[in-house]
């Protein structure tokens, strides 16, 4: 092959690879463009003040009302419940994995946690609806409704345990051995080394892990759509039916809503809210990771 031809080939390949990398940028632009375009149409009908501060969500029936707070309340109830359940378990299992477990136990437990992360969310939804509510929650709290925030929160919690434990495990293992050995030399016990040396040293990783898990819980859709119900309301009672941002989007897309109507536009306004919340959490998580990382050596 002549030199020029080779050169042309190299240039073409370089351009093709660059174009592939740009697909991700185009995707982001596409998401932002789509969400904003339809949301602007929505906000020409409904004032942003009513949308963001209204406490009643009823876009489908008269008298219509477009306050998104009940959907955010439902999302916070489910995601908060999931964290309440998943943070202690995820943290404890990552401490166990990185500080206590033998390589053999580790080689079993880590893949099992990954399998837990690989189970489709619709399966967790089925599990919440047909097992958690009737066989776990109802015997304990007979007043539990068929659709309830607690069952959704529990299965979403199970779903995000692997996120927390594997990111924390990575962070703990990045703490240099010398720190642990210095503490052991001062006759600290393993508990003290774990909780007073390793965890504080890896704090940025722990915080980032919890934030990423929170973003996942907020964006989680199928389990919540199946188990949490379709009743948008502001409540702190996890045993009743609520609706989340994602649950509402699913509910509308199940019906046949024609494009251009205000019901259709609510999908995009709610989607935009969801996108901005998760984006903010993800950005904060990445900042925490990069700017508060304890640099050793």
């Amino acid at each position, binding site marked *: 092959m002549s030199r020029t031809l*080779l050169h042309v080939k*190299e240039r073409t390949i370089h351009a093709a*690879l*660059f174009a592939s*990398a*740009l697909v*991700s*940028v185009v995707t982001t632009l596409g*998401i932002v463009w*789509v*969400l904003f375009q339809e949301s602007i149409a929505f906000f020409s009908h409904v004032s942003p003040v009513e949308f963001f501060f209204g406490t009643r969500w009823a876009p489908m029936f008269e008298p219509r009302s477009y306050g998104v707070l009940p959907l955010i309340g439902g999302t916070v109830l489910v995601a908060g419940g999931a964290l309440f359940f998943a943070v*202690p*378990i995820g943290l*404890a*299992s990552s*401490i*166990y*994995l990185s500080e*206590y*477990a033998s390589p053999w136990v580790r*080689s079993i*437990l880590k893949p*099992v*946690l990954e*399998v*837990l992360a*690989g189970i*489709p*969310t*619709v399966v967790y939804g*089925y*599990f919440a609806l*047909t*097992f958690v509510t009737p066989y776990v929650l109802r015997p304990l709290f007979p007043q539990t409704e068929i659709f309830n925030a607690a069952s959704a929160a529990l299965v979403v919690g*199970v779903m995000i345990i*692997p996120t927390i434990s594997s990111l924390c495990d990575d962070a703990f293992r990045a703490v240099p051995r010398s720190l642990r050995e210095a503490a052991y030399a001062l*006759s600290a*016990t393993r*508990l*003290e080394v*774990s909780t007073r040396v390793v965890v504080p040293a890896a704090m940025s990783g722990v915080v980032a892990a919890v934030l*990423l898990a929170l973003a996942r819980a907020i*964006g989680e*859709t*199928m389990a919540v759509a*199946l188990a949490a119900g379709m009743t948008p309301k502001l409540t702190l009672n996890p045993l009743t039916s609520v609706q989340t941002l*994602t649950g509402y*989007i*699913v509910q509308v*897309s*199940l019906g046949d809503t024609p*494009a251009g109507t205000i019901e259709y536009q609510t999908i*995009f306004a709610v*989607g935009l809210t*969801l*996108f901005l919340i*998760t*984006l903010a959490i*993800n950005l904060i998580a*990445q900042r925490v990771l990069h700017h508060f990382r304890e640099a050793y050596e």
Partner: protein
Amino acid sequence: MTWCEIPISHKDLFIPRIERRRRLGHWFALGCMLFSLIGLAILGILIVRVLWEGATWVTTNFLTNFPSVLSPETAGIKSALWGSIWLIGITALVSVPIGVAAAVYLEEYAPHNRLTGFIHLNINNLAGVPSIVYGILGLAVFVRWCRLDRSVLAGALTLSLLVLPVIIIASREALLAVPKSFRLAAYALGATKWQTVRSHVLPAALPGIMTGIILAVSRAIGEAAPLIMIGALTYVAFVPQGPLDAFTALPVQIYDWSDRPQPEFQHLAAAGIIVLLGILLPMNAIAVVVRAWQQRKKAW
């Protein structure tokens, strides 16, 4: 003043209490171990429960019949199974070349400038965007704007965008792990950049890239939310013949059945889950094994 004259109250004395601290440590270790077994236990309960509810419903008729609302006893997943196969085939064809190419660009070609930094940040953020937001994108762009309607192609393109960050991030890590000496050796023999990448770097990174691809595909198989967004939840009693046909998929069918209160449909949902997990769990296991094998035999 000698040291012994310093007044020390009994309260300030350091008491090691080593026995107590050790005992506390044992309890803590036990607690951590039990907590990390919770995940294992829940996985076990979930699988036993699904098998208990659905095992007897997984028959050859279940695999070869179409779904039916009127007679759940003879309903099956033929259209959902084929829909999923179509979806995954197209998704893999679209996302794997683009994803690997993007990773190669970012690791091997990209200059260290602001644009590259932005692309990195952008991919990390895309990985955290909820799947349903991709569904909204697919609905607006592929279904309405490109007029693909509720077709297999629209679904597959949506899923491709969804799994792209997974493939890129895994492939980048695999490329990053290939030592610099591989590249320098190829350059020293007069290879061009692309020859170096194609014949030396990519083969060395292949196991890691494969792991990423398997995990990405298994994520695409289990996704229901974006497909429901683009309208996959309709009654489909045929197998797609081409990329522009309407479709349903396994997780969407499972959602539909789970949402119906009658017990027959709960059994059908469980049977569908058995088939879905029967495909996914071996795939995940392969990915884990490939990675473990690769970490062990690293020759460099």
